[in-house]
């Protein structure tokens, strides 16, 4: 099947191209791209315009989503896009082979999730406008993966279009409304179109997706290039729009994942951010440069968010700084600015990506920072969303100045959670611990700035269960809470007020705090209604079934899961080296951390021992002093006893410091690494499902062939339907897999970053404490020295 053959091998040339681009001077690169874009599109532009004018948009043009182009573009255009594709990749065989190949191509395209929209636009070409409008409206409103279904069916031309119709439920008003706007848009000058096309290529080059990109690129180009229609350009823009919107929707949107996925292939970095920054930048250009266009765009976007600013803002929230930096770009009227914006986002990818680019790490950052600071001023005349944006932006700017602009710091600024006042409620074995969870936040999504709720331990576990159920399969790394400890809790329940149970409670309290902080620091988990409910709602339904997480069983469970993963890995023919390496890395890190944890724990044990021994030495010194009849010596000895008492305190603090700085931190990371492995596991499952579906599809095909051979037309129809059905499934599953892969990749990168930051912070903390205690020690010795000298 064309799908597999075309998809699976990540074409090297592409990635190389990308690399080359990356390694080039940023400015140079940008201009290059622009030029290319110009060339590409200028040729196409003229004719389209005329056509555009002539084409009477019969039914209603959908929102600028580029419903239009599809309609205008006929079968011919379809083929032509293919040829235009050759402009980028002249080698593509598809170009030469028209319709048949085209079918394949569309099939491929549909495979790659992000293209759903573009597919749709293509397919509609054959179909009457209305349907298209519907389709697009539907897409715009619900840019979910369902649209894909429509795409696939489209490939077989008009008769299957019904399916598309089904998919696109919410056509309605938007159609007409946006129609008008669309019209307007069309009437805009060629210039605007050119601009548009400029944007597009820029976007493409920025997402230099080696493997799948191929399809995407063609599509985009195709749409933009298709000489038949000026509209063609619009579709292209539409695709961009789609991407943007989806980008902002990121979490809900499958397609967006797709797009994210592409850059990842090549970049290995923080693809999502990059991606979003990029489209955003492109978007910004549009609205600004062409007013009329901008409007349609806005309305289009409206389906997701009220205006372009809206989605962007969302993106900004989600992705914080990077996205924010992109946002300012929107406000910059000049194309130059938006260009620089694009540049920056690219640089970011560089920063986070492989070090193939030899840019110093600092300089791009600085630049970016400068730009960011420059942008706010320009943003004064921004869109309606600007106000809120500016706020968050300036906030982030302040932080940039102070802290060097790290994502997490911003997060922390926005929301911080403390878990306090552990309290035993009830008696006997039914007793449980309850904690006060206080949230302080600047985020608008919460009703108040500060609020406190009371939660029991199982609530924390319940939250985790909900989150991991919802987000785990998507490849998110859901931070795990501390596991239940039967031993520790029993001690507390029995009411033993000894130091070990106090220690246990304190450790757990701190662990819960870190757990929640990690959850809210995660941009997508923070958006989860359950998280909000957990933080805000007075009464929470009692969490049940948390028993599964009890005790050491939890860690064991993770171990089992990870074992299963490694077994599956052997089965899975890993096409992506990154994941292979990463999994190994994670596993070895896991072992290392476990080892470190034991070591630190033993260090803590020794520290505690030292503290105890010091205490008893202090006691015996005091006795020795009291028995001494030489007054000076006696005095010195009792002084010494006091000094030793103080030192015991120091040792105790040091033990606590060791515990909380390292032992607990490392324990957290052992848990988190488990979660990381879990996300790999989920990816593997997605892969498995996809493979299974493919196998099933293969079988169906074989049956079809047999039926064909046997000449049984009645059954043949059924078989064809089944094949179609399975094709959809395969596409869906593959998209799921890509999506999960993308997410996992992003999550793991985020995890790595957090890890480095976290450790650094803790180490500094630790050193500060240690230094302090050392200085205290010096004071003690200095005070004691004269006493010792005074003995004689």
């Amino acid at each position, binding site marked *: 099947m064309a799908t597999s053959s075309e998809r699976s091998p990540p074409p090297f040339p592409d990635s190389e191209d990308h690399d080359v681009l990356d390694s080039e001077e940023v400015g140079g690169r940008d201009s290059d791209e622009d030029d290319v874009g110009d060339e590409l599109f200028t040729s196409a532009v003229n004719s389209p315009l005329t056509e555009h004018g002539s084409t009477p948009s019969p039914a209603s043009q959908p929102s600028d989503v580029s419903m239009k182009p599809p309609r205008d573009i006929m079968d011919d255009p379809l083929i032509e896009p293919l040829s235009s594709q050759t402009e980028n990749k002249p080698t593509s065989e598809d170009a030469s082979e028209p319709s048949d190949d085209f079918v394949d191509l569309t099939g491929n395209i549909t495979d790659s999730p992000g293209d759903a929209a573009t597919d749709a636009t293509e397919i509609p070409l054959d179909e009457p406008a209305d349907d298209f409008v519907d389709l697009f409206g539907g897409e715009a409103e619900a840019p979910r993966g369902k649209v894909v279904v429509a795409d696939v069916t489209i490939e077989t031309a008009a008769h299957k279009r019904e399916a598309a119709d089904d998919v696109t439920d919410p056509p309605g008003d938007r159609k007409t409304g946006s129609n008008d706007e669309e019209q307007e848009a069309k009437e805009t000058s060629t210039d605007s179109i050119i601009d548009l096309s400029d944007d597009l290529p820029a976007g493409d080059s920025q997402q230099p997706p080696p493997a799948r990109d191929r399809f995407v690129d063609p599509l985009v180009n195709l749409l933009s290039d298709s000489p038949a229609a000026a509209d063609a350009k619009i579709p292209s823009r539409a695709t961009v729009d789609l991407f943007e919107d989806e980008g902002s929707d990121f979490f809900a949107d499958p397609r967006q994942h797709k797009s994210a996925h592409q850059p990842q292939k090549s970049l290995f970095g923080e693809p999502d951010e990059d991606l979003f920054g990029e489209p955003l930048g492109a978007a910004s250009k549009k609205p600004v440069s062409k007013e009329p266009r901008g409007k349609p765009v806005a309305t289009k976007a409206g389906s997701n968010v009220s205006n372009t600013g809206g989605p962007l803002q969302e993106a900004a929230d989600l992705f914080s700084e990077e996205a924010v930096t992109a946002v300012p770009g929107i406000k910059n009227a000049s194309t130059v600015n938006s260009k620089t914006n694009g540049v920056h986002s690219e640089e970011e990818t560089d*920063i*986070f990506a*492989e*070090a193939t680019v030899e840019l110093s*790490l600092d300089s791009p950052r600085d630049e970016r920072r400068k730009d960011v600071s420059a942008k706010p001023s320009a943003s004064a005349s921004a869109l309606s969303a600007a106000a809120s944006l500016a706020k968050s932006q300036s906030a982030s700017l302040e932080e940039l100045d102070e*802290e*060097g602009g*790290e994502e997490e710091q911003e997060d922390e600024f926005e929301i911080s959670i403390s878990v306090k006042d552990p309290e035993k409620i009830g008696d006997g074995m039914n007793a449980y611990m309850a904690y006060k969870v206080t949230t302080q936040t600047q985020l608008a999504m919460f009703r108040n700035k500060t609020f406190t709720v009371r939660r029991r331990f199982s609530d924390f576990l319940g939250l985790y269960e909900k989150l991991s159920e919802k987000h785990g399969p998507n490849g998110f790394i859901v931070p795990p809470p501390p596991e239940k400890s039967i031993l520790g809790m029993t001690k507390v329940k029995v009411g033993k007020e000894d130091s070990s149970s106090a220690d246990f409670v304190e450790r757990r309290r701190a662990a819960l705090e870190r757990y929640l902080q990690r959850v809210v620091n995660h941009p997508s988990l923070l958006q989860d209604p359950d998280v909000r409910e957990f933080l805000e709602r007075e009464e929470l339904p009692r969490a049940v079934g948390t028993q599964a997480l009890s005790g050491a069983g939890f860690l064991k469970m993770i171990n089992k899961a990870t074992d299963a993963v490694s077994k599956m890995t052997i089965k899975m023919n890993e096409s992506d080296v990154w994941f292979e390496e990463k999994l190994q*890395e994670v596993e070895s*890190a896991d072992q*290392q*951390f476990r*080892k*470190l944890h034991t*070591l*630190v724990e*033993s*260090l803590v044990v*020794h*520290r505690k*021992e*030292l503290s105890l*021994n010091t205490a*008893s*030495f202090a*006691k*015996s010194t005091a*006795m*020795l002093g009291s*028995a001494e*009849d*030489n007054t000076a*010596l006696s005095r*010195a000895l009792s002084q*010494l006893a006091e000094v030793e008492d103080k030192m015991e305190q120091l040792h105790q603090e040091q033990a606590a410091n060791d515990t909380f700085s390292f032992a607990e931190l490392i324990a957290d990371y052992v848990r988190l690494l488990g979660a990381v492995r879990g996300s790999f596991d989920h990816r593997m499952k997605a892969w498995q499902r996809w493979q299974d579906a493919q196998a099933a599809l293969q079988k169906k095909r074989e049956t079809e062939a047999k039926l064909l051979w046997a000449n049984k037309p009645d059954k043949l129809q059924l078989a064809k339907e089944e094949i179609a059905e399975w094709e959809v499934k395969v596409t869906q599953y593959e998209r799921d897999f890509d999506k999960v892969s993308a997410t996992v990749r992003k999550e793991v*990168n985020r995890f*790595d*970053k957090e*890890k*480095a*930051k976290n*450790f*650094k912070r803790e*180490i*500094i903390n630790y*050193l*500060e404490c*240690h*230094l302090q205690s050392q*200085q205290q*020690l*010096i004071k003690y*010795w*200095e005070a*004691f*020295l004269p006493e*010792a*000298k005074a*003995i*004689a």
Partner: protein
Amino acid sequence: MMVMTSTLSVHGHNIKVTEVLKDGDTLTFLIVSQKLSGTGEHHVDRTYDDFEWLQQLLFSQEDEPGIQGVIFPSLPAKASANPSAKVMKQLGFLGLGEWQLYCKVLERYLRQVAAHSILSKNKAVEIFLTSSEPPGRQRARKNLFNRLSQAVEERRKEGYKDVDEFFQTERNHNLVLTCYAKTAAERFLDVVQSEQKIAVACAHFSASLHLCVEPGEDPDKQAFSKACVQLSEVFDSIKKNMTSVAENDMNTLGLGLDLESRCQEAEKEMLFRRTCKLVELEAARRNAEKAKPLKKAAMEEAKKTAEIEFNDICVVAKQEVHRFRAARVKMLQHTLVQWCEKQLLTAKESADQFNQQLQAFRGIAP
């Protein structure tokens, strides 16, 4: 009364035990002393048996009046190259490290003997320090103090009422101090051992942090790896700090407390010997009173001898006690000052280093 003619031909105050050699299970100590006459040095090698021989001879100078009133410098328990757990426990501080402390203690023992006005006169000391022939090996232990029976006796006579107020208080005081000094030394040993364990744990932690270094050029990974390496250095210096703290503890206060506790022990032995003499004397007096005329003379004679002996002992013992008290306070003071100074130095050095490392950490690009 015989007059000891032989005095030492070497300087007593700078006798050194410079080296320890392991020969199978036995430890051989190299002892260096400077000749009084000129620039030459005596180098002799002695085993623990030789030391014990010397100690025996010192104990058994029957012809020296009041020898029993001497507080003999105490010889540490026997060490062997591969000590059993029990021996290690007996040795306490002296078992730590590579016997340097043990050498120090032997050195101190020899110096005390050489400096002692009565003991240094003994020929055995001269032989021990200068003769190239190892003196103690051919004669197996003779006249061994039967420590076990002594311990039993001690218990019995501990509460014996003294005739002399001075000795009574000294005995009481000594009893308390012996006990406390011993506990203090043991507790302090625990402290030092914990410190050593911490040092080891830090070393392990530091070493395995190096294994956490992740390859790759990803900046985050590099940052993490860098943090790991630096943290490893931090823990290495924590380890060094702890090691030197433990060493300071051992070399100063540890040694001091050990010495203190053994000196108290020696004083206790001396006081015990005096008490025994006292008991003996009182028994002789009673016997003399009750004795039948026939034996009266003999009993009186015995009583007189005992009285003379006891008085000799008391005279020597009083001197010894005074000397001991002064020496002890001086020793403890010296120990404490030295300890404090060393710890202060270590703490300051470490603080400096931690500070540097902290700055280095802050310097890492975020």
